[in-house]
């Protein structure tokens, strides 16, 4: 019997954690893709090794369809894997993850089809493929070349499984809401629609009809200012806080996505907003890299040489 939606997640978690990945968690902010999570966007910068796997609920306001479209969702779920540096045998390691899901190359036409990836808002790009199984895209496979406009050395590989699409394929289901989410011990079935349908209806209404655009424009400006404020480097001033600043970059990005869904931004202004978010992403990346460098790129050291939490003096409250 094919895997339930949550078994797909559990299988991938099990597979990748056994191969040395940290089991990460989704970022606790609205975001559009697993790439936006700090676990990816900031950690791919610099020379430190990094291996992580996590689920990311990914919000795409313009893709909402009021729960009426069998394929499109306001929030879909990505299973994201990042390995730095990219292992030499990564294609085969990845193919074994498909085997773990019951997708055998003996049964399916699996191919790596050219797909260049670019995120204009993150100033990031990479080369790689869409992985197809019988013509269906099941994973985005990317060797990251740049993030925040910074050349990446070493190169990370990012694997993004579209969990809904993959599960629909495995369960041979044509409507996402029919997916079996899980089965209780008593055989009771919970479907994807039971868990998410109402969310889709409400968020579609919010995104397309209810969102207060005036508020969102104001928030965009405030978030932008806060992000920049946290990155100011001045003599005698506080140290920059790029990780916190990056939160506000994400908030800007989400505010922009909502305004876009509300069609509140004209085509001409659109590019300007994208560039503003991109600029925030860029300064966050630079700020983060500078801090890691000042810390001596801790993950390059032996674990016992870098445990700042054991060196903290008396914490004052």
């Amino acid at each position, binding site marked *: 019997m094919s895997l339930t939606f949550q078994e797909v997640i559990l299988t991938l978690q099990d597979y990748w954690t056994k191969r040395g990945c940290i089991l990460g968690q989704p970022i606790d902010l609205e975001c559009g893709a697993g790439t936006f999570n700090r676990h990816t966007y900031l950690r791919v910068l610099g020379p430190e090794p990094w291996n992580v796997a996590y689920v990311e609920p990914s919000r795409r306001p313009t893709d909402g369809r009021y729960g009426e479209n069998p394929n499109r969702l306001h929030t879909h779920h990505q299973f994201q894997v990042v390995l730095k540096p990219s292992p030499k045998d990564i294609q085969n390691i990845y193919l074994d993850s498909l085997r773990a899901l019951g997708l055998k190359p003996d049964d*399916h036409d699996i191919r790596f089809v050219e797909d260049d990836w670019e995120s204009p808002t993150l100033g990031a790009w990479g080369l790689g493929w869409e992985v197809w199984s019988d013509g269906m895209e099941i994973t985005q496979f990317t060797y990251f070349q740049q993030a925040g406009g910074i050349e990446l050395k070493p190169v990370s590989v990012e694997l993004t499984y579209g969990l809904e699409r993959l599960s629909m394929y495995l369960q041979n289901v044509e409507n996402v809401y029919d997916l079996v989410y899980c089965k209780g011990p008593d055989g009771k079935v919970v479907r994807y629609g039971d868990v998410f349908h109402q969310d889709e209806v409400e968020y579609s209404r919010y995104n397309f009809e209810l969102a207060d655009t005036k508020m969102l424009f104001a928030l965009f400006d405030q978030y932008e200012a806060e992000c920049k404020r946290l990155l100011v480097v001045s003599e005698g001033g506080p140290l920059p806080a790029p990780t916190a600043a990056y939160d506000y970059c994400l908030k800007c990005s989400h505010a922009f996505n909502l305004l876009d869904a509300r069609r509140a931004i004209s085509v*001409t202004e659109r590019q300007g907003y994208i560039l503003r978010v991109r600029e925030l992403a860029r300064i966050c990346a630079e700020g983060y890299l500078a801090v890691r460098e000042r810390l001596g790129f801790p993950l390059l050291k032996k674990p016992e040489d870098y445990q700042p939490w054991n060196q903290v003096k008396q914490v004052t409250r």
Partner: protein
Amino acid sequence: MNELLFEIGCEEIPARVVPDVLAHMKERAVKLPESYGLDVSSVEVYGTPRRLALSVQGLSEATKRVKKELSGPPTRIAFDKDGKPTKAAEAFAKTAGLPVEKLTKKETPKGEYLVAEVEEGGESAAVVLERFLTELLTTLPLPKSMRWGAEEVKFSRPVQWLLAVLTTDKGTTTLPVKFGLLAAGAISRGHRFMAPDPFNAARRQDYLEKLRERFVIADPAERKKRVLDEARKAAKEAGGVLFYDPQGAFPPDPLAQQTYFDGLVDEVTFLCETPFGVFGTFAESALDLPREVVLAAMRNHQRYFGVSDERGTLKPAFVTIAASRVKDPALVRRGNERVLKARLSDATYFFVEDQKRALHGRTADLKTVTYHKKIGSSYEKVERVLKLSFVIAEALGEGMAPKPVLEDFLGKTPERHDFWLRLGRAVALSKADLTTLMVGEFPELQGIVGAHYAKGEDPEVITAVRDHYRPRAADDLPAQEKVAAIVAIADKLDTIVGIVAIGQMPSGSSDPFALRRSAIGVLRTLLQHEWRLDWTALVQKALDGFSIKKADDAVAKANAFLADRFLNYLLPEKPGPEADAVRAVVAAGVQRPVEAKWRVTAVQAFAKTPAFTDVAATLKRVINILKEDVTGDVDTALFAAPAEKDLHSATFALADLKRSTLKKPSQAAYEQVLSAVADLRPKVDAFFEAVMVMDKDAAVKANRLRLLRNVAALVRDVADFSKL
């Protein structure tokens, strides 16, 4: 026989990259004798998404030995007073690789110098090939390359293995070629899933056969044949033929054949190592969608072939080429059918949603669509195209145009259709489909989608909405109907002039707005319809339509660009009299491309006549004398010799003939003019025999120059004979 086998084993390389890289590898290997001094008898290249291979046979064992003399410092510097070698001598000896004693002295016109007799070459093939391959690896023309892992090197996709072996009578050597952290070996691999284990290969035949056993057809030509066989077989199983398969009986349509067949076959050949054809079906109801939409949904993302009957009527079926053989092809078919079903249901959604609004209502939406940030919105572009279209139609003798106000043509579908209404309406709807969901998904269907959504409009309007983008490619015809052709010319000229006006002329390989294609489109449309329009006048009119800040030399630049495109379009590949004729005509000006084309043909025909060489020589002589501008009329009273009078009256008569002949210009008319000029030649020659042009008497001299100017004027606007 010495033989090299080299293979770059890769993670899947993009399909479009492989053929170019293979061609480059072959070219470099063929040049091994010149660039590396190794003889070669045959070079072959093989490639799939996972390997780029080079096989070189008949290699010499070593590079040729050549004796060479290196010259060093003058002897007075090379030795000190005591005759001992100085540092300079020692340094030279080191460079030459000889001990100082072996250096010799040589007397030259500049004094005595130290020289070294050295023998170069004789390097073993293994050493030279290692260098060749190392250089090759880092200098392949890859359009986009990347790094991976901790590697510093770049390639199209990560390189997984290198095979580099040289086989001679003495055995097989692995060449120590390195690429980043990777060192070459003697091992290759078969099909990713069907035969992944490593194997040894050294000779061409052995390599190809072992790969074949391992489900890899390495030779692209052979694999392409297999793709065709497999795809045709699958189409037959689906009860039809491949859409626009040249083996079928389709109505002629080179663009459809290129887009839906040839291009697809070529691409699919480089998406697999061995093809396996599988067909699938979809719901008949999807065929209610425009044919182009169904085909685009199949081709764009999925690379599926369409299946149709022999006349091109689509069947609800497709063919895909799988890259692996699976246990149960029905599973692969089902999977692909699901994907296509979703894509077609998206397309159906777009089709229904888009048509909830009338097409003409969408034109106003273009006000918010940026055409170019320095130029303005797409709506403004449509307004300009309307003006220019009316100018063109007036120039074509359609009478007085109404005021070109775009809003006047944006109402409900008109019931009466005079010419101006059809033309205005066609322009008004021409870009309305840009904001549709369908064009958003399939940008290459712009115009085609609009035509479908323009149902109920005048047929000529519908055609223009679709065809004003033509010719869409070199294989495509220009717009055939009058309204469509006018809009096509206006739209393209507006694009060219606007982009040139903001200073973004195409240069080298950079032509982001495809201005070259637009210019060829204008030219081909004019030629097709034999419209004798003056495109330089249209450039000026087009530029007047822009309210932006324009570069001062925009008109001159745009005209030069168009003339250059004319030259480029008509210039034959081989140099020679035909090419010279094109250059000579362009040098004389191409205001009216249709006439210029006639002139080209006439001059080319003239150049083939026996009289041509002498006539050209005589005219060149005339042109060469006329260095400076000559003004004023010929004064017959100043003639000294009968030859002058003779030439004068003949020239006069010929000018008359030319004027009346070219009242109705045609290729034949130009041929007639040129043959009359040929008949004039003896009189020109007689003139040169009889008199000195550069007479001591200034008035006589000026008069003779005027006469010659009149002779030159007979051909000046046909071709520049000094270029012939």
